[in-house]
């Protein structure tokens, strides 16, 4: 499937910016069933400082907001050809050792509810293989945590979201990652794009997770949609949790509020 993506993030600042940086992880890589045919990132209101691969081999860019600017616009436009791998990414590669994905992070630290969830899934799937167990975990999470926007934010932990019983794709992924790690599987966060038939205009990027199993290596799970990724999914960045893979992470010196607006089109 050939997907055309146009992704624009706009920050409006109440007061002219004195000094601010934005770290971007917005460039998909070719590989794992996807081929980046072309890709461009345009910045207005800021200057690219650096381009490098981070420890998860994410293409990363560091941008400085032009001093005095009241708005920065980050626009990615590109085309990606994706084949359906049924979620199977395969063997582990990259700088980071597999064990790095076994450790909890602040966003994926297990509390009582995640421990309970992991224990119940372990019991319910004792005689089943890894993939059945992980799909079961994914379904359990979806039934316990209703998809609902506006209730959680980028700092919400897996435990808090599970306890609250509602959240978005980021929360679903964090819960799955936290529980999978408790069950002994390395797990990682994926940020990316999802083509949704009949919904060209989207207001946020997507997130899912990948869990490593002995048999298949890395396998993707999109808890929010109850499936493993197929040809509609474009992987952009990975990491131990959202913080590692966030599409945009910024820091700003100075006063005043900022307003974020995201415009995203994923088309076939």
């Amino acid at each position, binding site marked *: 499937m050939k997907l055309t993506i146009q992704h624009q993030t706009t920050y409006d600042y109440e007061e002219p910016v004195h*000094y601010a*940086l934005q*770290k971007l992880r917005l460039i998909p890589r070719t590989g794992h069933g996807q081929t980046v045919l072309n890709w461009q990132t345009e910045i207005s209101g800021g200057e690219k*400082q*650096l*381009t*490098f*691969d*981070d*420890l998860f*081999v994410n293409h*990363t860019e*560091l941008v*400085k907001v032009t001093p005095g600017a009241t708005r920065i616009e980050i626009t990615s436009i590109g085309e990606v050809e994706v084949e359906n791998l049924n979620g199977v990414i395969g063997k582990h590669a990259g*700088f*980071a*050792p597999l*064990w*790095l994905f*076994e*450790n909890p992070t602040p966003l994926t630290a297990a509390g009582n509810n995640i421990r309970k969830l992991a224990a119940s899934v372990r019991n319910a799937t004792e005689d089943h293989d890894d993939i059945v167990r992980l799909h079961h975990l994914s379904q359990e999470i979806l039934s316990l945590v209703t998809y609902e926007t506006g209730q959680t934010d980028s700092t919400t932990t897996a435990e808090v979201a599970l306890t609250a019983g509602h959240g978005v794709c980021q929360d679903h992924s964090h819960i799955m990652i936290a529980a999978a790690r408790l069950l002994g599987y390395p797990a990682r966060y994926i940020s990316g794009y999802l083509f949704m038939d009949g919904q060209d205009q989207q207001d946020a990027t997507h997130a899912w997770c990948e869990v490593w199993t002995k048999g298949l290596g890395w396998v993707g799970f999109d808890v929010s949609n109850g499936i493993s990724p197929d040809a509609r999914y474009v992987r952009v960045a990975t990491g*131990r949790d959202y913080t590692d893979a966030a599409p945009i*992470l910024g*820091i700003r010196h100075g006063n005043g509020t900022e307003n974020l607006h995201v415009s995203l089109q994923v088309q076939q």
Partner: protein
Amino acid sequence: MKQNATFFDEMLATPGDVRDPYKVYFDWFENEDLKRLRRKSEDAEAFFRRIGITFNVYGQDEADERLIPFDIVPRIIAAREWAKLERGIEQRVRAINAFLYDIYHGQEILRAGRIPRELISGNEAFCPEMIGVNPPGGVYTHICGVDLVRTGEDDFFVLEDNVRTPSGVSYMLENRETMLQMFPELFTQLKVRPVSAYPQRLRRSLSDSAPASSPNDKPVVAVLTPGIHNSAYFEHAFLADQMGAELVESHDLQIVDGHVAMRTTQGYQIIDVLYRRVDDAYLDPLTFNPDSMLGVPGIMDVYRAGNITLANAPGTGIADDKALYSYLPDIIEFYTGEQAILKNVPTWRCSEPDALAHVLANLKDLVVKEVHGSGGYGMLVGPAASKKELAAFEKKLRAKPSNYIAQPTLSLSTVPILSKAGLAPRHVDLRPFVLVSPNKVEITPGGLTRVALKKGSLVVNSSQGGGTKDTWVLGD
């Protein structure tokens, strides 16, 4: 002078029998007037006060800044003794740099099963953000301060490898400066190797470690300090001054054209090498602790992109972590193919049940240290502890054994200090300072001798009432 038979005294091997390196000094001392020496000792203190060497002691509300006591009797090391130490330190530091490269790249040592994976994967001192980073010139520990103790004529042990941001070098330099002022005649009688070139060597060593590509004609070096409230601020300012480098704080720095640059009167100047005295966790709020006001946002990205040298590299703490310490002989063998020249202190890892049982059974004879602690905080010196303290520590130890290691109470050597009654032996350790650049490992002949001023005390940390001595390495 009364001699304690159970400890090795570096001046008097046995009462009346002065060891070779001290012979000239001892003769001089015998002919000196004690009153004059005491006056000199007071002069030395006044001298330190004037130049402003002070030290903030954590956990003491009253005296924000305190002078570290200085003792005027030098600690003297023979050329032959030093040569062996030098070889041993160089071997150790080279192995540590090889280990750091490996642990942040292929992790061959884990694959080979030479150290347990959990020691790294579960260790807070391991810095994942360093994975895949190639520090310019392959150097991780530009500055090390290896803590050594001595128990006998030929028995030196490494107590700690300080490879994060070792402090104390300013004392080494000022102690010598003071001794040269007080006793110039001694330096004509004895061939003492100079230490005064350290700042220039540091500067050259850092410059040699600069990134290969730089927009500057000559490498620009700066010292990053957390600020005036840091306990080692004096040293930061002192070293910057002595090196002819800028002393900068967080608010002086910005990302400019993909580099880290400092504000100057002529605009922003790109920095090639940052000798940073800010801890890893505070170094980059965009990568580590987001609330840090002491660091430089984005500096880890500049570093990963190869546009700046950080001295020392982040994540070096995994090499001097106390949990890893007991594996250093294996690490040296793994990377150099040689046996360690300098010995490790025998260490019980309390994470291992057998070791824990041994430690609990012998607590009153052992020194127990927190794996991540430093500066003598949170440590138990069994023989000096009360029953109550022992019981309290046992509780902590049982609650989280993996947080502790234990070592025998070493019979640290003594060197005399000038006490009211004349010479009196006190326990000492030694921190030589090591500079590592892509081309070489340089060890300044001398170092910081710390001395436990309290009679019988084995704790030499300045935060725990220790003092310092000038350290003389004799020429051939």
